[in-house]
């Protein structure tokens, strides 16, 4: 973000008794770190769980395909 | 069960030794760990001229004198000893009489501490201005001497 747009953003927010240039960036940094971590964790949980489910379904399908033959052997 | 007990004993003994080593190291390095010394400490150790150090304490009430060009003199006290300080430059917003400060610089030949940086130190009390006023009015306000940290005394 450029200095000018940062200044105009700070101008819109309450000036916090002249400390706005310190207060708002502090909250912004906290929000950035926490939201970033949350999104990254959400995405990797979704992706990994989906991939694990796909792999398990593939294996289940593969073992279902081999099962009848084994059952036939047994009988 | 036995290996678990053994692992636990090893870990606890190792942590105990590590803690002991840390305590010893920090005690030995105490002078390096403290951020500033008090005016009384300074009077006791008579530093070499030009030796850089940090001095912490309260700005003595009524001691602030402003000169030309942002020059300022004031006294830093731990309520036992006061040291005169000279400084030229921008002061932090919290700087005022009765406030905790840490000044960095060296003792001059004239017995004044020539500071090239002044940091304000605030205490651990947080309250709205009205509450502070009410406390002052009711006489329950303890100015300055709340904690050793604000007065800058070491033990």
């Amino acid at each position: 973000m450029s200095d000018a747009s940062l200044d105009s953003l700070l101008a819109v927010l309450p000036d916090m008794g002249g400390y706005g240039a310190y207060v708002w960036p502090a909250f912004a940094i906290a929000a950035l770190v926490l939201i970033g971590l949350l999104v990254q964790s959400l995405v990797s949980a979704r992706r990994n769980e989906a991939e694990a489910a796909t792999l398990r379904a593939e294996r289940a399908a593969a073992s279902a395909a081999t099962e009848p033959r084994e059952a036939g052997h047994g009988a | 069960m036995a290996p678990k007990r053994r692992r636990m004993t090893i870990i606890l003994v190792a942590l105990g030794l590590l803690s002991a080593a840390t305590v010893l190291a920090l005690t030995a390095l105490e002078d390096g760990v403290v951020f500033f010394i008090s005016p009384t400490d300074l009077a006791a150790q008579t530093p070499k001229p030009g030796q850089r150090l940090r001095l912490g304490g309260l700005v003595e009430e009524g001691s602030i004198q402003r000169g030309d060009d942002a020059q300022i003199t004031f006294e830093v006290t731990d309520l036992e000893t006061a040291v005169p300080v000279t400084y030229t430059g921008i002061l932090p917003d919290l700087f005022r009489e009765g406030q905790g400060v840490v000044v960095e610089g060296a003792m001059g030949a004239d017995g004044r501490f020539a500071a090239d940086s002044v940091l304000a130190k605030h205490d651990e009390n947080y309250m709205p201005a009205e509450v502070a006023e009410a406390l002052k009015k009711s006489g329950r306000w303890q100015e300055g001497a709340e904690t050793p940290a604000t007065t800058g005394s070491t033990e």
Partner: protein
Amino acid sequence: MGLKDRNRPAATMHRYANPARFLRLARAVQPWAAVLTIICLGAGLYLGLFASPADYQQGESVRIMYVHVPAAWMALFVYTSMAAASFAALVWKHPLADLFAKAAAPIGAGFTLIALATGSLWGKPMWGAWWVWDSRLTSVLVLFFLYLGHIALTNAFDEPTRGARAAAILALVGFVNVPIIKFSVDWWNTLHQPSSVLRLDGPTIDPSMLWPLLLMGVAFTGYFLCVVILRMRAEIAARRIRALRYSRAAG
């Protein structure tokens, strides 16, 4: 190698038994933690930013406290929980303990980063310096490096269990830093002021400022719970993927 292969089925069973139960519990806890976080965060932010009074000394800059202090609490709390988990991992080989430590470390590092950055933004106008090397600030910087070291060690080995073991030892060794951070402001002269909330003689903060602070503390704790569960779920799934690929390659 032969010994390891023989142990593998048993180890796999052990690894799966607990995570399944954990996942059920996690799915039950997660929505409640999320709701708690959102409510407390909303209330804490409103009170902290707008409805609470300015400080008699620090004016409106005191509002930085409402992110700085809870982040610093969490930085210490998360590390302490990681040290406890690492102890359990080393002594009892609890399968979820390593998983927890690995999931918690990046969150703890995030909280520590927030505490450092917001502290700097608070220090400039109040103290007159972005940074000073006093014992409180320095020991928190060391904590940040411990978190980074933990993350690096966890991922440094081809075999995940070796990385987890090395990281667990680091977490325990680094734990000596936690009491140093907490008591640095009492033991030594620091520029940082002593504790205002967690002290023996009770808080030295006016209730109108203590409430938003505590609400933000609860919100950050709830956030940690939500995100650590998410990260543990992601890691459990990643291990399943590895195990399934391994069995496919082997079979």
